[in-house]
């Protein structure tokens, strides 16, 4: 059978897929993880909203808890939309502001120290974001820091490695603090923690190890981003969720995921990843997303490069020698 790409390849039978995922979620949480319900942090984005809606279908609203975890630089609309989704789904939720904890840990201070090495006149009142430059189709990527003083123009500068790494390391506190709170509630309720990456994020390593990458169950990690949007509509989520462009909601200037990490809009990244996974020639991808064959070849190379670079994020703790006695206590995945 031909596996040539056409748009229908990414089209789901949504009701069948929803039923299949929910059945697996029930089995995994109850039989494998032996937990009573699930915790889910709700950002108001499509991934966490779909996961929450799936969890409601799988467990009912009384066996789950939603968490809204804003910080000083979250978009105001994120928590609002998260609340709208929680209320529509009829699930209980708590709001915990993590800004004071991030302040105490030095998240903003460490980040701002690095920024001032690039823009010495920077003050915390400025807005900022990191954007990817070069991009997936240019062959090599690098990062720029974009800042904006209050009432001023946008300014940008290429980030040296040391400053880039410190800014990212500091902002990773946000995902890790959120996860600590999720596990607090999971422990006190004997619940499992849901992770919400889609296939693009999971495959390409767009997550923080020990942060949003940490979870007991990741119910949509096999789904391309466009498929997650299909489920969102099938699950009846609000238009504001179904039509929103993915953002990182990590920096104070609005930042799309394609600006920070993927280099291509998610619709094209889905096609690229699908074609790559199915061994399709670069010429076929080029025709499908409207780029040159050489650009499509570089997109494939970028996918492989990101897999190589982020393999560490997927790697569990490595032992010097296997401790085989525990094997009998790990419940099988089937």
């Amino acid at each position, binding site marked *: 059978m031909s596996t040539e790409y056409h748009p229908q390849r990414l089209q789901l039978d949504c009701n069948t897929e929803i039923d299949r995922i929910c059945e697996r979620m029930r089995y995994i949480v109850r039989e494998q993880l032996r937990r009573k319900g699930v915790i889910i942090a709700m950002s108001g984005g499509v991934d966490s909203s779909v996961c929450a809606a799936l969890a409601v279908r799988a467990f009912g609203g009384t066996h789950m808890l939603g968490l809204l975890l804003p910080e000083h630089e979250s978009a105001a609309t994120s928590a609002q939309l998260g609340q709208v989704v929680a209320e529509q789904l009829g699930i209980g939720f708590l709001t915990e502001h993590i800004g004071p904890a991030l302040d105490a840990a030095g998240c903003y201070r460490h980040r701002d120290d690095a920024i001032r090495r690039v823009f010495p006149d920077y003050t915390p009142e400025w807005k900022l974001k990191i954007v990817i430059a070069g991009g997936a189709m240019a062959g*090599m990527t*690098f990062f720029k820091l974009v800042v904006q003083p209050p009432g001023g123009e946008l300014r940008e500068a290429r980030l040296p*490695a040391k400053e880039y*790494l410190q800014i990212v390391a500091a902002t990773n506190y946000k995902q890790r603090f959120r996860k600590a709170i999720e596990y607090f509630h999971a422990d006190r309720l004997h619940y499992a923690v849901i992770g919400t990456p889609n296939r693009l994020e999971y495959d390409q390593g767009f997550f923080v190890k020990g942060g949003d990458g940490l979870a007991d169950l990741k119910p949509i990690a096999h789904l391309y981003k466009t498929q997650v949007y299909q489920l969102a509509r099938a699950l009846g989520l609000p238009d504001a969720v179904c039509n929103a462009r993915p953002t990182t909601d990590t920096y104070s200037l609005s930042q799309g995921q394609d600006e920070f990490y993927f280099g291509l809009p998610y619709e094209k990244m889905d096609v690229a990843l699908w074609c790559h996974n199915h061994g399709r020639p670069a010429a076929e991808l080029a025709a499908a997303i409207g780029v040159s064959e050489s650009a499509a070849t570089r997109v494939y190379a970028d996918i492989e490069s990101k897999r*190589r670079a982020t393999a560490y994020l997927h790697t569990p703790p490595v032992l010097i020698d296997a401790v085989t006695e525990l094997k009998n206590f790990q419940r099988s995945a089937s």
Partner: protein
Amino acid sequence: MSDIGKQIRSYIEENFIVSAAATLNDGDSLLDKGVVDSTGFIELITYLEEQFGIQVRDNEMVPENLDSIGNLTAYVQRKLSGT
């Protein structure tokens, strides 16, 4: 190999902790060999600018200039000679 090439090779071998670095041919792709990733390239750029006193422009950050020891050496030589 030129002095510039030796310095670049030495930096890559010392800075990027992968066994493949020690067996690199001048024409080998640093990306394909898994010697550097995107963060590694940024480190490499910083090294080139500081070590050789050149300015790497954004539009020069392409594999043809930076993805092998041979390409890096030729690129730095062109920058230093102003061509």
